């Protein structure tokens, strides 16, 4: 694993039990995140983004398991840890301190019965031994850092007294207070309206500048990708179909699915009045994927050889795609 890589995911397979059988939710997911960089994980709903993030955190639901793959994580102290080999107690010591997570649902991700200050301060209680007064001081500082007005007063508020945007700021404060080196954000702004979304994205970029952490930014919005990401991994039906720097992905698109995603959003290159071109069809049920390329049923370039297994291959330096084609013309 490269010295500048903080997390390297190789061949990650996650399976879920249910109705007496096991189905694959992730099929050989591979990507890596550079130190201090932001990797966007994009894909339509149901492509396995959340499952990937939960597998990284060690928080898969009881019916899910990692069936294969490695998750190499570079600890703050320089050691490289294989997360899949750690016991539950060791995983727990990493959570919140080394890698933190914020979730899509700001309205329901905070405990309704504890104050904001209590919930953020609990991180310090759990991971850093300090007295209550110091915890309170640090918590107020953190609330100020995420730009919550009247931080000292807000400490004693309950989640229901805050707007969605404010709650997401609280989640960010909670995730960041122990200065993790990796922040996983699962669609942190999807539930928020556009202005608030922009503010939260600004805040995250600012915090990244201050704290220097890496971010795994999960989204289905290519506009947000353009704004936030250094690198992008595109997921389809439980697999990564393309990974590249954000520039390369937008300007030298190699996978027809990525091309479809780019075409389906309004972008600066799009004239007013142009019709959005959504990708026809929908993600097939994971239990009944076609053999070979999973995107074939929806792909305008599909050929008979797409029914053979298609691996993620290098199309250019630092540019991987899982397609028989060398590339597709820019959208």
């Amino acid at each position: 694993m490269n010295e500048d890589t903080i997390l390297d995911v190789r061949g990650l397979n996650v399976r879920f039990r249910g109705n007496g059988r096991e189905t694959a939710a992730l099929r050989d997911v591979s990507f890596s995140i550079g130190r201090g960089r932001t990797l966007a994980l994009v894909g339509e709903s149901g492509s396995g983004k959340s499952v990937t993030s939960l597998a990284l955190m060690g928080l898969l639901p009881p019916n899910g398991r990692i069936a294969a793959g490695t998750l190499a994580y570079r600890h703050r102290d320089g050691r490289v840890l294989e997360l899949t080999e750690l016991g539950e107690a060791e995983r727990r010591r990493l959570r919140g301190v080394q890698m933190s997570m914020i979730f899509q649902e700001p309205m329901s991700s905070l405990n309704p019965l504890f104050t904001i200050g209590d919930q953020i301060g609990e991180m310090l209680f759990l991971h850093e031994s300090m007295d209550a007064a110091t915890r309170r001081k640090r918590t107020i500082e953190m609330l100020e850092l995420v730009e919550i007005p009247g931080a000292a007063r807000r400490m004693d508020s309950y989640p229901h007294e805050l707007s969605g945007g404010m709650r997401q700021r609280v989640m960010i404060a909670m995730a960041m207070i122990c200065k993790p080196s990796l922040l996983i954000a699962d669609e942190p702004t999807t539930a928020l309206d556009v202005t608030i979304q922009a503010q939260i994205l600004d805040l995250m970029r600012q915090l990244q500048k201050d704290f220097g952490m890496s971010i795994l930014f999960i989204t289905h919005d290519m506009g947000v990708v353009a704004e936030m990401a250094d690198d992008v991994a595109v997921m389809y039906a439980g697999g990564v179909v393309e990974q590249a720097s954000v520039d390369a992905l937008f300007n030298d698109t190699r996978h027809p699915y990525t091309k479809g995603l780019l075409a389906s959003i309004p972008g600066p290159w799009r004239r007013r009045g142009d019709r959005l071109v959504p990708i026809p069809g929908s993600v097939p049920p994971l239990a009944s994927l076609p053999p070979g390329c999973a995107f074939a049923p929806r792909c305008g370039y599909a050929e008979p050889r797409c029914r053979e297994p298609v691996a993620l291959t290098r199309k250019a330096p630092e540019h991987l795609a899982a397609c028989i084609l060398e590339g597709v013309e820019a959208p």
Partner: protein
Amino acid sequence: MTNYLIRRFMGMVVVTFLVLTIAFVLVRLAPGDPAALMLGPDATPQDVMDLRASLGLDQPIFVQYLTFVANAAQGDLGRSLFFDNSVTSVLAARAEPTVFLSLFSLIFALVIATPIGIYAAYRRGSALDQSAVTTAMLAASVPSFLTGLIFQRYLATELGWFPASGYGGPDAGFLDRMWHLVLPSITLGIVNSALILRFTRASMLDILGENYVRTARAKGMSERRVVLRHALKNAGIPIITVVGLTFALLVAGAVVTERVFNLPGLGSLVVNAVLRRDYPVIQGTLIVVAILYVFINLLTDLLYLVIDKRVRY
């Protein structure tokens, strides 16, 4: 908050008033003349007339009603037709076994049911979960008089571990009396614990699937802390609700349990009062229980307020 308390207090006054009215009407509707009943079959019509006059039964009905309410407001619920004593004193003399029986059985139910319910929910589908749910279902379906009889037979009569019945006699000390309540409390507690267990399990199951429980895990705390701090507090509200509701069950159960174990409590008092047509005592018990019920309701609502700051009355 103060406003709320005032409103609740007014509500309690209204309910009490209604209860008094219902109790009054019920007894007037009952067959038989109380004075004739008190005096027995040998009394002359003149005796009955005299007693009716002294009881105020010859007054117009609304005068009787007002007198009744006015007296009740001062804690005077009339005189027992059977005992030579006021209803209040009769009730007071019989309250102890019932109060402690209810209290102990509730404590027993909570101590048994909540931890098992929490654990069963946490390990849903496990052998322990399944056996807990099955046992609870069985326990809830066996009538408590049967459980009581079985306990009495095996744990008391055969093994001699506990007293089989009674309240220790007139000279029994406090501890001895309480010792006589152990089997009855368990008997009565079993039915309630089955209910509380199922409720605890169900509400914990709901809560454990909540997003904030996932957040708690993501914060890097132990499972123990996730469950006992973040989940349990949220499950507390439905649990308190069901505990409040089981109070009604407790009262009904106390009547049966006291019969089985021959305890001189309010339950057996009211059963005997019915058999003897001792209307003032029936009336008095009804009023006391109803007021207690309203009071417990208020208590659970106030507990919500303490636990959940979203609750605004």
